[in-house]
């Protein structure tokens, strides 16, 4: 909605710095998720450790952006589109930080599986790989939608989350089958449930980011709304 610059130039600089810091955090989290999924896929302990180590930088950025949010609220008393951007950023970084936590969970599960020396079959369940790829794609597109403030793109992400949820249930069914067929896989299967759940949560957080994008850009709260209502809202000029 906004086109012009603020009369106070410094305000523009502060908002731009905040926005670019969120994207930097998003890039880090995206990479962390990718690394954790690769570590799971290839049972690579080094990659798993990298994903775990990346979490500290993500956490530091969250605190950093949070401080910026407080600073801008105190200094500028934002309104309208600026206010929505700032409250939206505060929520987006919370979701991104939690995506980082989920990536760390995946990486830790990789380590547990390695310790049990029982990953040879379980990490090749196609639905885990597919849902991992889908969640990573959702996250990437949610960050793109944030960068462009594109509510239509955000709506497609909300729709895609339903697919991730379905895949999670399919993975659960497969893992239960493994456990019933061969009780020796129970412990490792439970670790894989953690991985599948973390992937499903990453999808949820990407969806949340997409909802925040719709609120920031359109001033309409897309949370807890039906997909039809969301699609109708973003179709409005």
């Amino acid at each position: 909605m906004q086109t012009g610059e603020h009369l106070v130039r410094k305000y523009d600089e502060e908002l731009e710095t905040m926005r670019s810091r969120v994207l930097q955090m998003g890039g880090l989290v995206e990479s962390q998720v990718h690394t954790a999924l690769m570590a799971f896929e290839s049972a690579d302990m080094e990659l798993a450790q990298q994903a775990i180590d990346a979490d500290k930088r993500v956490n530091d950025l969250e605190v950093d952006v949070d401080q910026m949010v407080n600073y801008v609220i105190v200094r500028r008393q934002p309104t309208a589109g600026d206010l929505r951007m700032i409250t939206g950023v505060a929520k987006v970084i919370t979701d991104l930080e939690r995506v980082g936590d989920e990536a760390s969970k995946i990486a830790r599960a990789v380590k547990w599986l390695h310790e049990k020396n029982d990953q040879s079959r379980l990490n090749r369940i196609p639905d885990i790989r597919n849902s991992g790829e889908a969640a990573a794609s959702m996250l990437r597109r949610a960050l793109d939608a944030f960068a462009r403030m594109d509510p239509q793109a955000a709506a497609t992400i909300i729709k895609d989350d339903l697919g991730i949820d379905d895949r999670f249930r399919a993975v659960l069914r497969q893992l239960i089958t493994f456990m019933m067929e061969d009780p020796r896989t129970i412990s490792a299967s439970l670790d894989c449930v953690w991985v599948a759940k973390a992937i499903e949560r990453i999808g949820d957080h990407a969806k949340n980011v997409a909802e925040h994008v719709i609120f920031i850009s359109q001033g309409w709260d897309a949370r807890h709304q039906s997909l039809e209502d969301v699609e109708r809202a973003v179709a409005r000029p």
Partner: protein
Amino acid sequence: MVSTPAPEVASAEPKGGPLPPIKTEARDLSFYYGSFQALKNLNMPIYQHRVTALIGPSGCGKSTFLRCFNRMHDLYPNNRYEGEIRLLPDDVNLLAKSVDPIEVRMRIGMVFQKPNPFPKTIYENVAYGLRVRGLSSKAMLDDKIEQALRAAALWDEAKDRLQDLAFNLSGGQQQRLCIARALATDPELLLFDEPTSALDPIATASIEELMAGLKEKVTILVVTHNMQQAARVSDYTAYMYLGELMEFGETDQIFIKPKRKETEDYITGRFG
């Protein structure tokens, strides 16, 4: 100013429940200082027992609009109104020649930017309007003055010094005295023209707190340059620009999601 589309006045639906009743309403209101048109065909409701804030850049006509309500412009020659301001429930046009401006000012009080107590005692300041109305009974005057000072949150500070000169009060107290003076005649509408711009933050907070309580009794229309103040005190906000009403709606809506880009640019500080 390029020609602008119709103002977003229809956006005033409250989030829940029906709209409050209208206390007063501008209908096709224009105002001229000589040949200069300061207000251009304004249509806007003022809802009963609500605070409505008028915001906009200097020279946009918000004070001019405010002063139409109590016929302040009648005090200067060559000023001209067109259109109507209806006061409900009796549906009288406040701008009609047949309506006595003094009577209008009894029903519609005004508080100015700088406290302007009369050079009299605290008691006599509040008693003034009542005496003009013909009230002379000491007991009744005492009673009304206490009520007005209590309503203006000044009674506790002033009750033991009612015979002191009003100028001995602090700026914030003087402003509350002016509010008490306006309240003494039981107005239906109170007009505030930048009521806190000459006050410190503490006195400002006390006036804002007072406005929140006063709206239970009267309808309030306030002009303010301070947008945070408009956001804090008002239920409805109108954004004016170059004599036109650009947008009117619930304050939350105006400050979170204004409908017009012009409003957004102004309240976010992009106005150039």
